């Protein structure tokens, strides 16, 4: 019996080699490293904890500026005040509009252009367009910022629409790079059968190509989302009407009015940050894979 028991441990199924070293024998958990990493994670969570804790204090308690004390009593007055002061619903709506517009426009325009470029790679015009579009990756926004302010003002684009156009532009080159790399790996036979059945190029794109691009579209969409939702520099100088500003810019505009009402300030910060954090926590698997995929390709 003892021999069988001894064999039992020896015949445990080997862990599949997942690219990391799988030592022969038992997988030992490295507790020291685990503990060190948990200590490191506090540097990530501490600013977020302070934000939540400050936002839930009363004005009387927040004014002392003690970040580490717990709120007592817990109060949501900060949220109520911030909601009214910064006109949160409007800011949220504009941020949502800019972000959704940028994500959709980036995915559609980049997929369109990538498909045309890959299917006509033998034509000089399409080849050159590819390198032309890639050029944007090397142009820092500040370089073209001043003329863009003038141009958008002249064409009545000094508003959220203009921000969607420019944000899409800045995401375009990177997205075209990802889509073209992906499209090269798709065998042309997939479309040919559709064409034999009489599908037009337009139908082929929407019925066959676009669904195939879905995983890359997710990556492209995540990057566009993070940029459009969080960017401060571009909307702050393109949108001329303060009432139409996005959430990050509103925090800047209301700095002086927050003054030492820390609970109102932090409630406002929290409401601006929360949607992106919640979206990330819901879709974190895709985000982590998508970002890795995108960054390594780019």
């Amino acid at each position: 019996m003892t021999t069988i028991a001894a064999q039992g441990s020896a015949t445990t199924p080997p862990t599949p080699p997942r690219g990391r070293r799988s030592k022969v024998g038992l997988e030992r958990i490295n507790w020291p490293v685990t503990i060190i990493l948990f200590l490191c994670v506090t540097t990530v969570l501490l600013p977020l904890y302070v934000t939540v804790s400050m936002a839930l204090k009363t004005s009387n308690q927040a004014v002392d500026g003690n970040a580490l004390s717990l709120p007592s009593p817990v109060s949501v007055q900060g949220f109520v005040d911030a909601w009214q002061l910064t006109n949160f619903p409007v800011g949220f709506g504009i941020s949502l509009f800019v972000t959704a517009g940028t994500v959709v426009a980036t995915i559609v325009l980049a997929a369109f252009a990538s498909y045309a470029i890959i299917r006509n790679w033998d034509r000089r015009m399409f080849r050159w367009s590819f390198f032309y579009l890639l050029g944007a990756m090397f142009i820092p926004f500040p370089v073209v910022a001043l003329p863009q302010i003038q141009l958008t003002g002249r064409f009545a684009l000094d508003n959220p629409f203009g921000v969607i156009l420019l944000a899409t532009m800045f995401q375009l080159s990177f997205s075209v790079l990802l889509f073209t790399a992906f499209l090269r790996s798709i065998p042309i036979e997939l479309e040919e059968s559709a064409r034999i059945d009489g599908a037009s190029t337009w139908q082929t794109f929407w019925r066959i190509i676009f669904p195939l691009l879905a995983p890359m579209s997710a990556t492209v969409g995540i990057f566009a989302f993070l940029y459009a939702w969080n960017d401060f520099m571009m909307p702050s100088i393109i949108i001329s009407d303060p009432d139409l500003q996005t959430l990050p810019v509103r925090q800047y505009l209301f700095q002086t009015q927050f003054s030492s009402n820390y609970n109102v300030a932090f409630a406002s910060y929290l409401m601006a940050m929360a949607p992106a954090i919640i979206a990330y926590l819901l879709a974190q698997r895709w985000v982590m894979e998508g970002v890795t995929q995108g960054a390594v390709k780019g």
Partner: protein
Amino acid sequence: MSATTATPKAPTTTTPRRAPRSSRKVEPIYYLFLFPAVALFTFAITIPGIIGIFFSFTDSIGIGEWKFIGFVNYVAAFSDPAILSSFLFTFGFAFVTVIVVNVIAFGLALGLTSRIRFKMGLRAMFVIPMVVSGIIIAYVFQFLFQNTVPSLGGALGISTLETSILANPDLAWIAIVIVTAWQAIPGTLLIYIAGLLAVPGEVYEAADIDGASPWQQLTRLTLPLVAGYVVINVILGFKNFLNAYDIIVGLTGGGPGTATRSIAMTIISGFMGGDYAYQMATATMFFVVAIIIAVLQLMVTRGRSSI
């Protein structure tokens, strides 16, 4: 094999192949597919770029009359201490931040790919800063640097920390590095995790059998094998940090004085300050620097397209 001196390059699937020019007709709809992207790019980048470079040779203040003045703006910019200091600050800051971010991210990636508990949960938590808006987290840290750090410094009896480092022209940049790193580490970390997971486990088994110490395994095996990922992270990071704007606006506003003004802040101030053409000259110089970095990037990453 033929005795050619040139080494033949193995064709990779990701690099575009030169196809022979065919005489087939292109379907018109393909032009329709291509047009929006190219038109948008031309309107939003090419035309503003040309306008900007053009006006950098004038005395325009953004509106009204202007005339050509040649290289006057460039000569003035070169001897302008404000512009020189913003260039020096931005490059110094980018250099330090790239090192800090990559060292920390690589260490974390080693930990997060080893045999630990709660691996996926920890990874997910470390990535959170990537989804937080730069200017907002800068305001949170500004509060911490102004209130919490001084009171802790007072309690511990460290005189340097008793006043806010944001008010100290010599130390304010450290706060900017900390917050920028806080936000930039997650993206860098994910790339390193991808790189470390791509290393086959057999390599380490062989090293174990040969009796290599953990330190030797790190320096002789891991680092050379993920060198490509290090290059990507350093170049991407440096490019991002040169555009530093949001976090600095939130933390110090470029102060105290102009101690922490980045190039981007200097250029954008030209829109308010009436020295439009002058800052376009700054922007053009910045553009030349960006092109040089882009060329370096292409030179280094060519042939690395397989990763």
